[in-house]
């Protein structure tokens, strides 16, 4: 090898870092502008989405108030003032009718379905101590099979569903369970859809888990929730 090797043209390290830094700064600027520019619209969209979901499960509600129930049994209104996050606190929505009277309480529940977690929002009727209905927040259940939970007449006939607490208000008197289609005998049982048993069970478990956790915290304070604050 006699011929001199021509050194490949190189860019100086400084130039590379400068360019990358410059472009990163430009991109950072674009991202932050987009975030700031859409922030209000996104928040408003989220609020409307929650409101719509709650109004669907509590048809008489005209306005909602968001609360959290802490493990100690305290109920705090989530306001614009910014509430400090309490660990283990559970969020729920109180729906108020046109006279600002409590129309129902909407609680989110989640359980594993056939293909992913099924998140539902269900309404608790404090006067009747029943779960009056539910709606789906997110679900990836099989179209035409698992998504029948929202339209199947026999399944929807399960509601209102009994959700009474024991005398000491510590847990549900009867755990809510999903039973095989046609074998429902008690008002706290859910009659499953034939062919969509797993999704039906997920609905039952989601309601039961959330009700067992939250109702003992809410029910002792119902009088405080009666009127819209």
């Amino acid at each position, binding site marked *: 090898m006699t011929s001199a090797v021509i050194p490949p043209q*190189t*860019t100086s390290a400084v130039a590379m870092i400068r360019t990358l830094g410059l*472009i990163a700064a430009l991109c950072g600027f674009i991202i932050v502008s987009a975030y700031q520019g859409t922030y209000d619209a996104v928040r408003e969209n989220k609020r409307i989405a929650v409101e719509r979901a709650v109004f669907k499960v509590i048809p008489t509600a005209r306005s909602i108030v968001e609360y959290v129930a802490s493990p100690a049994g305290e109920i705090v209104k989530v306001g614009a003032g910014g509430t400090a996050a309490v660990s283990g606190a559970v969020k729920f929505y109180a729906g108020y009718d046109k006279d600002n009277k409590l129309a129902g309480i909407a609680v989110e529940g989640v359980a594993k379905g056939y293909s992913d977690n099924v998140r539902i929002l269900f309404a608790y009727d404090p006067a009747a101590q029943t779960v009056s209905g539910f709606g789906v927040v997110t679900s990836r259940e099989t179209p035409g099979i698992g998504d029948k939970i929202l339209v199947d007449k026999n399944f929807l006939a399960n509601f209102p569903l009994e959700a009474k607490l024991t005398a000491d208000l510590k847990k549900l008197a009867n755990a809510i369970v999903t039973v095989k289609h046609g074998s429902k005998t008690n008002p706290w049982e859910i009659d499953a859809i034939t062919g969509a048993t797993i999704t039906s069970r997920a609905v039952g478990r989601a309601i039961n888990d959330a009700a067992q956790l939250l109702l003992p915290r809410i029910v002792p304070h119902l009088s405080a929730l009666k009127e819209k604050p």
Partner: protein
Amino acid sequence: MNASTTERWDEFMEGIWRQNPLFVMVLGLCPALAVTVSAVNALSMGLATTFVLTCSCVLVSLLRKLIPKEVRIATYIVIIATFVTVVDYLIQAISLALYDALGAFIQLIVVNCIILGRAEAHASKNPLLPTLINALGMSAGFTLGLFALGAVREILGAGTFFGIALFGADFQPWVVMVLPPGGFFVLGAWLLIFAAIARRKNARPLSSPAQGVR
């Protein structure tokens, strides 16, 4: 039409027809199969990709003399990721229902090979105008491809088009079409059609009256 306009038009049509990203190059199959369960989802995904592809290619083209070739891939990825984040916020601001329907596939536009491919193969070597035309053509081709998939899957799998019921109440939806396998079926059928058309076009000059020749 003068020569340069024709050329530009050719460049634009390239992405729609001769080099259609979906049906000819078979790129970007991840969103193409995953989100095309309905015409609306397919169209929105196509528009989101259009935004990212066009903006990224324009910025890459503008900065092409500034970007050292040693760090070009990192630069392109940063630029693409930026516009994906922007489109992510925009969709959230427009409609949360749409955002939920498209799910993780909005973020996954970052790794869409069409975009990085365009930035590397075209935008980094060409000035602004040709880049813009090429990017728009490719985006239009991809959007049309997604729409073709989404429309067929929605009509067969749900019996609706843009949410409007097409058939009577007796219609039993062909559910498999909105499930993942249906994506492959419909894509396969479209690829077949495109390949058949391309073949006939190539064969035509040889057999002069093309009609009736099988």
